[in-house]
């Protein structure tokens, strides 16, 4: 070792790194060159012969003959074994058995740097173990927590399902009560009994619109009018005599009980129901027959930007009745237009929850269902509809083409998928596929079967009084009207149907 400095070690003043000094001292001994020595650069040292080193050198310098404990000691001072990559082992000059160690401050030519070599704080190693243990236990805790959350989520999901079912059941229940009340009220009013103002919010308004307080005392006992009041949300000032009464009270009557006739029935079958009783009977004139909407194509609304939660577009002779579930105005307008052109009567609802309600009350020939919607998504809604209706085709309209999702939709009771955006041809192809088979059957059935449903519309805003002829058609369908057909005299029925 030519470059080895022969100067003696400085007096050992500190003692905190005796080991390092002994090590350095040892490496100064030229007689060990074959056993242990600096590498040429002087930045690391190598033990060439561990046997000789352990047997002869360790006892002299470190008072033991345990190579492992020597290595451990080195590690404590943060020395590291120099790792020789496998591919270089072949050419490694010191051979397979050599152990090379280095420390950034352990250099042959830098005695001062030795001062920087410190024993690692003994706690450090324990710390690592501690940290590992802590991490392990944290992982365990997290895994446990995940499992707990998963089971909690599952039970929450279960209770959500149960709750959801119950809510829907409750709604149905509520609606029946509401209808029954309506029937009772109608009987009472027909019998000439005065009914005090009642606060009967329509169950359909829950969560959708502000309930409208019914505060209309009957104007008088005339039978015609007494029918008119509960029936007509918008009692028209058809003749001058009762009109003031009507205009005061009538506008607030939206929430009055409606008859258990599906709204579509009222709308589709020539409007005699929506316009019905109230106007025709109260006036007992033909005010309605002239400007009345009759059987013509009904433009759904004047206002293109706003839709009620539910609106139905009527056709004179609809071939099919389609429920369109969609929350986007543009798509609603477009799709409805195309459906009407195809000859469908279209009912539009804007979220999944309404879709369930509406589908429950009316048998449709087809349901077109958007997926992403407020309140309840289309897939869940379809799933739910399948619980009470296994047959009506439900077609998902979606711009989501991921196979996994599509499968999921089909799994949820969707019959088919119509990719958005679609063209007229796309839509018509889908319609033919799912409607034409049912056409024959359809013609033998009434347009919309009467169900134990109730009206779902009812604009919340009291309507301004207008001449009958100018009341927008869709508002006419709103008021909950008793359907007193059964209780009415035959000639009245005729009047209404004429």
């Amino acid at each position, binding site marked *: 070792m030519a470059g080895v400095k022969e100067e003696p070690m400085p007096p050992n003043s500190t003692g905190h790194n005796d080991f390092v000094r002994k090590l350095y001292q040892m490496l100064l001994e030229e007689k060990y060159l074959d056993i242990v020595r600096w590498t040429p650069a002087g930045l690391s040292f190598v033990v060439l012969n561990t046997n000789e080193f352990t047997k002869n050198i360790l006892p002299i310098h470190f008072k033991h003959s345990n190579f492992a404990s020597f290595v451990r000691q080195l590690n404590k001072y943060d020395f590291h074994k120099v790792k020789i990559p496998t591919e270089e082992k072949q050419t490694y000059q010191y051979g397979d058995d050599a152990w090379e160690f280095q420390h950034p401050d352990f250099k042959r030519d830098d005695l001062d740097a030795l001062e920087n070599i410190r024993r690692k704080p003994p706690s450090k190693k324990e710390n690592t173990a501690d940290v590992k243990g802590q991490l392990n236990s944290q992982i365990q805790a997290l895994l446990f927590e995940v499992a707990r959350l998963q089971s909690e989520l599952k039970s929450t999901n279960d209770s959500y399902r149960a709750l959801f079912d119950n809510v829907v059941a409750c709604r149905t229940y509520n609606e029946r009560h509401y209808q029954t009340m309506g029937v009772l009220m109608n009987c009472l009013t027909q019998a000439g009994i005065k009914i005090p103002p009642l606060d009967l919010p329509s169950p359909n308004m829950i969560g959708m619109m502000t309930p409208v307080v019914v505060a209309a005392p009957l104007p008088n006992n005339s039978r015609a009018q007494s029918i008119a009041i509960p029936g007509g949300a918008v009692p028209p000032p058809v003749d001058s005599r009762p009109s003031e009464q009507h205009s005061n009270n009538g506008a607030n009557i939206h929430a009055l009980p409606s008859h258990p006739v599906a709204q579509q029935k009222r709308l589709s079958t020539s409007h005699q129901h929506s316009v019905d009783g109230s106007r025709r009977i109260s006036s007992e004139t033909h005010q309605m027959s002239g400007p009345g909407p009759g059987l013509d194509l009904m433009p759904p609304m004047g206002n293109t930007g706003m839709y009620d939660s539910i609106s139905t577009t009527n056709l004179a002779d609809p071939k099919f009745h389609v429920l369109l579930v969609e929350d*986007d105005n*543009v798509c609603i307008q477009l799709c409805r*237009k*195309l459906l009407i052109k195809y000859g469908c009567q279209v009912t539009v609802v804007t979220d999944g929850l309404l879709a369930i309600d509406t589908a429950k009350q009316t048998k449709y020939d087809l349901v077109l269902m958007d997926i*992403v919607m407020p309140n309840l998504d289309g897939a869940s809604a379809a799933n739910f509809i399948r619980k009470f209706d296994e047959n009506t085709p439900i077609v998902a309209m979606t*711009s989501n083409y991921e196979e996994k999702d599509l499968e999921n939709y089909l799994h949820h009771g969707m019959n088919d998928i119509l990719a958005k955006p679609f*063209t007229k041809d796309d839509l018509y192809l889908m319609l033919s596929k799912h409607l034409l088979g049912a056409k024959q059957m359809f013609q033998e059935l009434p347009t919309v079967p009467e169900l134990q449903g109730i009206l779902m519309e009812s604009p919340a805003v009291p309507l301004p009084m207008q001449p009958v002829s100018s009341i927008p058609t869709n508002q006419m369908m709103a008021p909950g009207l008793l359907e007193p057909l059964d209780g009415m005299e035959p000639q009245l029925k005729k009047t209404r149907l004429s």
Partner: protein
Amino acid sequence: MSDEQMKKLQDSGLVDWPVFSELVAMDEDEEGFSKGLFQTFVDQFKDTYKELDENVELKDLDKLSSLGHYLKGSAAALGLVTIAEQCERMQNYGHKINCDDYSLDSDLSESDGDAYWVSLVEDAMAKAKTAFEESKEALIEYFGDFDAEASED
């Protein structure tokens, strides 16, 4: 509509022509139907854009994504391809998917978390706005002014 106007709109590349001509064809039995659709869309875009702005403030990526999805549906239904494209980017970025490997000019990177994705959404929003203005201009040239425009400006 003169052929010239039609050609101009067609050449702009702002609308998907098969979709657009199908819409216009529906005016045959209801005058002004297609214009009404675009009017609805113009209003909807403005309203939704306000909501987008609000949710950029709130950094609500889920909401941003769903608004993007919503607007994309309308734009695509009307063949407004350039707008729909940007809306789709919003939808993806909101779900933290860099669908087009877009790189921002800013220093933000994926490691910056939500801030990065919000800036991506903002980028798409700005481009959607531009696409909207262009498309609207072209449509106004074709249809005449929209109501809301007349009242606002």
